[in-house]
């Protein structure tokens, strides 16, 4: 990884003044540190995608197939025929500029091609030239542009500098969704064999092993056993979750990030403790051991392949409904794609909480409930014994993950849960939360080390809002419901606001949750004392 500037230097260095030269004439800066490593053939082979062999984006000549222009043209045509949204998004933009400064990557880099409008123009200019009457006749006067090898490099650069967060879409007067534009751009690149490994390896892993990280079934069980040992040490209670158990009432699926590395693991422990407190009849699956879906960042077909495991496993195990853990893009797939792609889930029942009897009518077709919906309902019905004072050392703020907020509208449930398990909760400024929330800077498969500079810049708007509440209220904990957030925030906070930690909502729940027969807790789930030393001295 390249040497990073100091935070102040990076901040002061950001310049939003547009360059003198038109963006059409600027070559894309594909230099080390500005691109993610390309996908390896072995991963592409598993997914039966085109394999370009060993290459680097830094190479002068890219390994494009002989008929690459034809592939792009045909691919574009096919997608225009398949998606009305693509046609509308290509035709209706008036370049009003409302989206320009809504993108976290533009705010953090100042690179004009990171304005959503220009990012979409990268594709639109080719569309105009090849698919519209005005563009065919008038060419560049009508905003058309010839497809060249440089265009492909530019697409690779900028469609992998978009985290598909959809913030710009909130502000667009026509609802143009840059995420869909980026997805189409990435699909076209995929047709040429150009992908990034940070996405393709998880896709291939998930396809064969059941989860992004390639954790095999016995290892999954070992990890969970290890986490239950920790829970026992903290609470005195040994939990024995089941795996692939037929006849369980509920199948619980969460992103593999939750059981792979901290701080996600604490959230995973939180789920297990909650289920234990309820005596819930649930099972984990090693086959569907991934909630996330990096297929979403690859192609529609890849997404469908990976997503199919959820319903197939639910059917095989004979469960009644599915409960889903804290993950951002996982819920975009579940809310906006799953039922359409792999439904109907007519072999499942409309989800009903066995504890409160609440029927989750808003999930009556998909039959999958978000854990914060489930927990909020428990709290509302007073089914949990909670001691929020065990979270008193935390001053918590909440980061709305892009997808649950703008692709679902899950805004109040996690807040309700947090406010019931923590005594100190503070909101960030209103233009940075809820549907206007900022991405962590690492979404859509960009949370890889080699683009750390981009991630820190893209995460600046979020981090800066955290810094604001840190300075104003002493906030020291950033809660979220996204596994990518939990992986991305620690380095982001370390860089911009080092005093603030990262947590999942259910880690906070489990800290406060009083289990029947538990020993007196002296530490939180991280084996850290319940109170800070200075706080104890105050008392």
């Amino acid at each position, binding site marked *: 990884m390249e040497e990073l500037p100091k935070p102040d230097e990076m901040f002061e260095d950001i310049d939003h003044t547009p360059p003198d030269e038109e963006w059409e004439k600027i070559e894309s800066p594909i230099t080390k540190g500005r691109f993610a490593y390309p996908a390896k053939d072995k991963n592409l082979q598993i997914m039966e995608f085109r394999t370009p062999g060993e290459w680097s984006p830094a190479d002068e000549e890219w390994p494009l197939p002989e008929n690459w222009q034809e592939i792009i043209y045909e691919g574009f045509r096919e997608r225009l025929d398949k998606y009305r949204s693509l046609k509308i998004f290509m035709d209706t933009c008036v370049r009003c500029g409302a989206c320009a400064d809504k993108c976290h990557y533009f705010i953090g880099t100042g690179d004009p091609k990171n304005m959503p*409008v220009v990012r979409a123009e990268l594709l639109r200019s080719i569309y105009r030239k090849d698919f519209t009457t005005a563009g065919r006749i008038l060419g560049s006067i009508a905003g058309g542009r010839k497809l060249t090898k440089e265009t492909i490099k530019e697409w690779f650069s900028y469609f992998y500098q978009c985290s598909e967060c959809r913030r710009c879409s*909130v502000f667009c007067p026509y609802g143009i969704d840059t995420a869909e534009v980026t997805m189409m751009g990435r699909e076209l690149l995929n047709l040429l064999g150009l992908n990034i490994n940070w996405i393709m390896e998880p896709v291939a892993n998930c396809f064969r092993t059941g989860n992004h990280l390639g954790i095999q079934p016995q290892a999954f069980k070992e990890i969970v056993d290890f986490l239950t040992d920790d829970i026992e040490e903290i609470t005195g209670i040994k939990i024995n979750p089941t795996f692939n158990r037929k006849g369980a009432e509920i199948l619980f699926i969460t992103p593999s990030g939750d059981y792979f590395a901290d701080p996600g693991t604490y959230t995973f422990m939180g789920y297990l403790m909650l289920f234990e407190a309820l005596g819930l009849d649930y099972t984990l699956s090693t086959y569907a051991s991934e909630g996330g879906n990096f297929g979403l960042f690859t192609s529609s077909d890849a997404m469908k392949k990976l997503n199919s495991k959820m319903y197939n496993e639910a059917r095989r195990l004979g469960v009644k409904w599915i409960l889903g853990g804290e993950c951002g893009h996982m819920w975009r797939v579940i809310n906006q794609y799953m039922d359409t792609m792999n439904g109907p889930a007519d072999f499942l029942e409309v989800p009903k909480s066995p504890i409160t009897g609440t029927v989750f009518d808003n999930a009556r077709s998909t039959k999958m409930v978000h854990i914060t919906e489930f927990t909020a309902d428990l709290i509302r019905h007073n089914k949990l014994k909670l001691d929020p004072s065990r979270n008193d050392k935390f001053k918590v703020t909440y980061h709305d993950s892009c997808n649950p907020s703008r692709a679902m509208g899950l805004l109040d449930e996690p807040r309700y849960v947090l406010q019931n398990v923590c005594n100190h909760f503070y909101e960030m400024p209103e233009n940075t939360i809820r549907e206007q929330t900022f991405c962590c800077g690492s979404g859509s498969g960009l949370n890889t080390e080699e683009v750390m500079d981009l991630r820190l810049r893209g995460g600046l708007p979020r981090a800066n809002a955290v810094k604001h509440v840190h300075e104003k209220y002493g906030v020291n904990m950033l809660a979220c419901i996204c596994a990518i957030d939990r992986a991305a925030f620690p380095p982001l906070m370390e860089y911009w606001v080092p005093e603030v930690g990262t947590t999942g909502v259910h880690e906070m729940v489990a800290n406060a949750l009083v289990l029947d027969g538990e020993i007196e807790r002296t530490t939180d789930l991280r084996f850290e004392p319940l109170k800070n030393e200075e706080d104890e001295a105050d008392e």
Partner: protein
Amino acid sequence: MNVSYLYSLLAVVVLGLIAYAGAAIGLEVLFGIIIPYLAVLVFFAGFVNKVLDWAKSPVPFRITTTCGQQQSQDIFKQSKIDNPSTTGGVIIRMLLEVLLFRSLFRNTRAEFNGKKVSYKWVVWLWLFAFLFHYSFLVILIRHLRFFVEPTPFFVKGLETVDGMLQIGLPGLFLSGVLLLGAATLLLFRRILLPKMNYISRPADYFPLFLIIAIALTGLLMRHFTKVDIVQVKELTLGLAAFHPGIPEDGVGGNIFYVHLFYVSLLFAYIPFSKIMHAAGIFLSPTRNLANNNRMKRHINPWNPQVKIHTYEAYEEDFRDKMKEAGIPVEKE
């Protein structure tokens, strides 16, 4: 500095001169009858063709942009308009978008102040756009007077309101001034704001200059060169009744033909330009669909069959390890 607006300006000026000269050398029939008819034809054919082309592609997924709380348990108040789950909610959301430019109203400006990034609500773009579109609409309706006889009551009513300032004779219409003002502000915004200047292209400036030219020639005709309104109306009513003819006594100045030519150009230009946003907004999937995905299954007409890695294949790969770890398997 991007000076592409100069090309558009030049184009509009040249086109205006062509019409002026054309009318001067006796091509009234071309500029007064043939081109307007052609323009309207191109407009309708192009417009319908474009919309049908959009409609030809399916909406495979229900991808809305949710801008508020979802429908959930009753303790969480749903944002029924910004995150609608019913058709009624969608209709209100669309009405607010189409009539009041709701999303644009949210606009903020990101600013770096010291070590802080702040986001200020800014209303200007919304305000200019609002004035621009509504004054245009009022002018369009007012012009019905030229195509319908007798003049409909609502046109007269609108004229009364529009002319309430009672300046000059004939009275100055507020809408004309507002259109000119708003279009000019939108133009200056594009030229002077660095970011806007950077993303603007001839296709952005051309329609603005064209509309400014339409407004200018309109005001010029009404208040300065004073065209012969009776003759003009004879011509336009003739067009509307498909009995076209050029009035024998002329229309009182060739500026009229310039105005008409600009309007014709605008009409013909619409289907091939970004002005199609006017129709596009109605079909925008992120706004015109309900976020009821988990309640009601959306059908994708081309839902593909994909090759999946089945549980059986997975168990084949890991059976021994699973058995050893005590994880149940299908085949012992």
